[in-house]
């Protein structure tokens, strides 16, 4: 039962259904009895969200683990929510295809969990996020009704696009049981380049030049100050910032991308520029994607600042006013405007620190999400940190789809 603990709350029971009908029956029963249900997959991101207001039943989806349909000619696959992304991609690789859903700890994450958490990784720059890959869903609503949205074809505007609602919803509107995705062919060639810069500003400027070019990079990430570059594959000074560019495509195109990217990086003042080996590339890509989540690197406090790409360097500077950045790590995705901070050991008075950070970034028009923190802190802050007229619509959404509040209650925005 330890495995099902959420923010220190343990449910009275856990169930692990094997079919969609069983899931529906369980939720119907929970609804009749007024039990609060939290769905889970591999349980990798259960600490996302505010503290649950109630928690009676853990709904473990890991036994819904079949690939329902795979059509390589159509680049479409339909899988149950308990299938892990690792096993799915292994299966797809046999036909030279993959699901381009780049999410932390992807190998172990289940489809349902990955979509409910909706944490996007570096290669969103090229492939988009879950909303760009999901073409159909089957979910069980709080009444126990099994409902479908979308379909199994890549072009579809029939009906309202409810697929979008369940993404990142932490199971608060319905439990995902089956998903259809559009797939991509595996690229024939891969490459990656790492470059060092003496400041975040310089690294950011170089990164934006790559992002806004027609090179079509898969991912562009910056990290620093070294040694957050315990990621660093290249010789770097302490206080240096690292810029990593991930490339893929036909071999001739990748060669061109590599040489052009290197020139741009040099022109923008790189210290050392290195082409990475395949092993280095995979290791760094995983480190960046799993930042603060991998075993041995688990955050005690993990924040994500949601900003515009152009704001990244300025945000890091402001963060430096509230935080000694050498203590934490910082990674940033200039393509998406996301800046992440991770403390291995909780700082003193973490809730005051988060408040200070939110104040520092207040004028920048974005938000700071607390993705992991000491559970006690959840009584003092709201992890989502957003407000606006749209929140009222979100409350209406929750009221419409889960009027009794039995699905993951309390964890979402506005403590829905």
């Amino acid at each position, binding site marked *: 039962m330890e495995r099902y603990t959420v923010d220190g709350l343990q449910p009275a029971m856990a169930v692990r259904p094997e079919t969609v009908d069983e899931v529906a029956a369980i939720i119907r029963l929970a609804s009749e009895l007024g039990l609060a249900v939290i769905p889970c997959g591999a349980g990798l991101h259960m600490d996302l969200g505010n503290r649950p207001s109630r928690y009676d039943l853990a709904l473990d989806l890991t036994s819904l683990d079949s690939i329902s349909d795979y*059509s390589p*000619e*159509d*680049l*479409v696959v339909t899988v149950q929510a308990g299938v892990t992304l690792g096993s799915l991609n292994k299966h797809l690789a046999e036909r*030279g295809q993959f699901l381009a859903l780049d999410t932390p700890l992807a190998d172990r994450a289940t489809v349902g969990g990955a979509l409910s958490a909706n944490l996007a990784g570096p290669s969103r720059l090229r492939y*988009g996020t879950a909303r*760009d890959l999901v073409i159909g869903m089957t979910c069980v609503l709080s009444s126990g*009704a099994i*409902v479908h*949205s979308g*379909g*199994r*074809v*890549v*072009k*579809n*505007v*029939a*009906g*309202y*696009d*409810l697929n*979008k*609602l369940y993404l*990142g*919803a932490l199971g608060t509107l319905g439990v995902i049981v089956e998903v259809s995705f559009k797939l*991509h*062919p*595996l690229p024939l060639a891969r490459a990656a380049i790492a470059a060092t810069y003496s400041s975040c500003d310089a690294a950011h400027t170089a990164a*934006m030049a790559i992002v*806004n*070019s*027609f090179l*079509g990079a898969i991912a562009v990430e910056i990290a620093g100050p070294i040694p957050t570059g315990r990621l660093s594959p290249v010789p770097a000074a302490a206080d240096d910032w690292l810029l990593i560019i991930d490339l893929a*495509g036909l071999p*001739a*195109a990748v*060669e*061109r991308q590599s040489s052009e990217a290197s020139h741009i990086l040099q022109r923008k003042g790189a210290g050392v520029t290195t082409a990475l080996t395949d092993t280095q590339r995979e290791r760094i890509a995983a480190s960046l994607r799993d930042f603060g989540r991998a075993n041995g690197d688990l955050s005690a406090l993990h924040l*994500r600042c*949601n900003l*515009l*790409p*152009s704001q990244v360097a300025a945000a890091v500077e402001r963060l430096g006013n509230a935080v000694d950045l050498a203590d934490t790590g910082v990674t940033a995705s200039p393509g998406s*405007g*996301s800046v992440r901070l991770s403390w291995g050991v909780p700082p003193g008075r973490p809730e005051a620190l988060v408040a200070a950070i939110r104040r520092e970034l207040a004028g920048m028009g*974005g*938000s700071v*999400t607390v993705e992991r923190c000491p559970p006690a802190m959840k009584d003092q802050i709201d992890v989502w*940190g*957003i407000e606006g*007229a*749209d929140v009222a*619509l*979100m409350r*209406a959404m929750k009221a*419409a789809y889960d009027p009794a509040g039995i699905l993951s209650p309390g964890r*979402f*925005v506005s403590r829905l």
Partner: protein
Amino acid sequence: MTAAILPIRELQAIVGDANVIFRPEDLLVYEYDGTIDRGHPSVVVLPDGVGEISAVIRIARQYDLPVIPRGAGTGLSGGALASEGGVVIVTSRMRRILEVDAVNRLAVVEPGLVNLDLSRAVSELGLYYAPDPSSQRACTIGGNVAENSGGPHCLAYGVTTNHVLGLELVLADGDIVRVGGWGRDRPGYDLTGVFVGSEGTLGIATKICVRLLPNEESVRTLLAIFDTVEQASETVSAIIADGLIPAALEMIDHPTIQAVEPAFHVGIPLDAGAVLLIEVDGLHEFVEEAAGIAKSICLEHGARDVRQAEDEAERERLWAARKLAIGALGRLAPNYYLLDGVVPRSKLPGVLEQAIAIGARYGFTVANMFHAGDGNLHPCVLFDERVPGSTERVLDAGGEILRVCVDAGGTITGEHGIGLEKRDYMPLIFTDADMEAMTRLKTVFRAGAQFNPCKAFPTSKGCGEVHQGPAMRALGPDAYI
């Protein structure tokens, strides 16, 4: 059907006298869209600004009048038709580009902006707006948002919803709300995502924040000529199976060629069975190799000839032959009924064959043009509406073709929307529970029964039949409008 009282004066006070249309002869133009259906607006207003739209909606609500948002009226499912009368709110005066942020690659635009005008406006910055419906010279971004429009280049780049980052909305009660992150990630439910494609039934978008993409370095456009549709379809499947996702992959068949070649003179032999238009874009190196791969696959599957556009002018001409093909159909018949089915790509050859056979059984030629790369077919059933009973037969033929698409694992609309014409086909693909879950959104957005009523979901009592508006009926069967 229309309300007894129309608040003309109040509406004039909000938008100005010139922007309220209520005389029957003036309302005529707003009865139609791109379909064979007609509506009957009670009054049409052309507001400018979110405040005016909010005020108009509040007045309409006060008088219990239906509200129907309308962009350019090029829609292909009846979404902008006032099938139950009411106040049509036309966005054409709101067509500004409010902001362009080249560094963050986004723009904020008003709903009445014409799709192609956006790409043209940002091209000097090396940017463009990817969703490119065939009607892009006329259709509006607001209309694209309502229908989640696609277009040939959505094969590689995605449809409208993949390029909308945020919206300012006016809801059915007049409230104004901003949704989405507008270029930043935003926690919470994806309200932008559910609004896009909601066919104007949940509110009106008054500002749209869109993603822009950098222009690609290079583009190659190929025209491959085949003897049969089967060869062309198999080529499509082979290209995708080979792991090559072109930027666009379009097909037109023999009847369509008869219309398009005399109109656009691209050099397609009139006896060709089918033509594929293939476009690849990206770095020079990629484009060279990809075009070569595509050409080989075409030849392997029996292409008579594969030509490459030599310059931008030729490329434009080739694309005109596809994007303007619908208009060219007027050479073949006075009317067409355009379908929008989708099937898995691998099922294309069989479904096409069945569509043509169904048309033949009803006595109609079916001209096909479509986004072959993503399985989205547009069979055009050619007919003459002056022939008594032909409209009804055409609709029946269309229904059969849609059933074939659904049976093949597809869906009934890939990009045009359900609107009026396909609302009663929804049960082919969704259960009552599925549709009940969807219609809860109307409650969430406080949309009420009068906000673009009788669209997108099966007809309930109170929703009338459409086809042939009042003016047509008045003029009699020999008229042609």
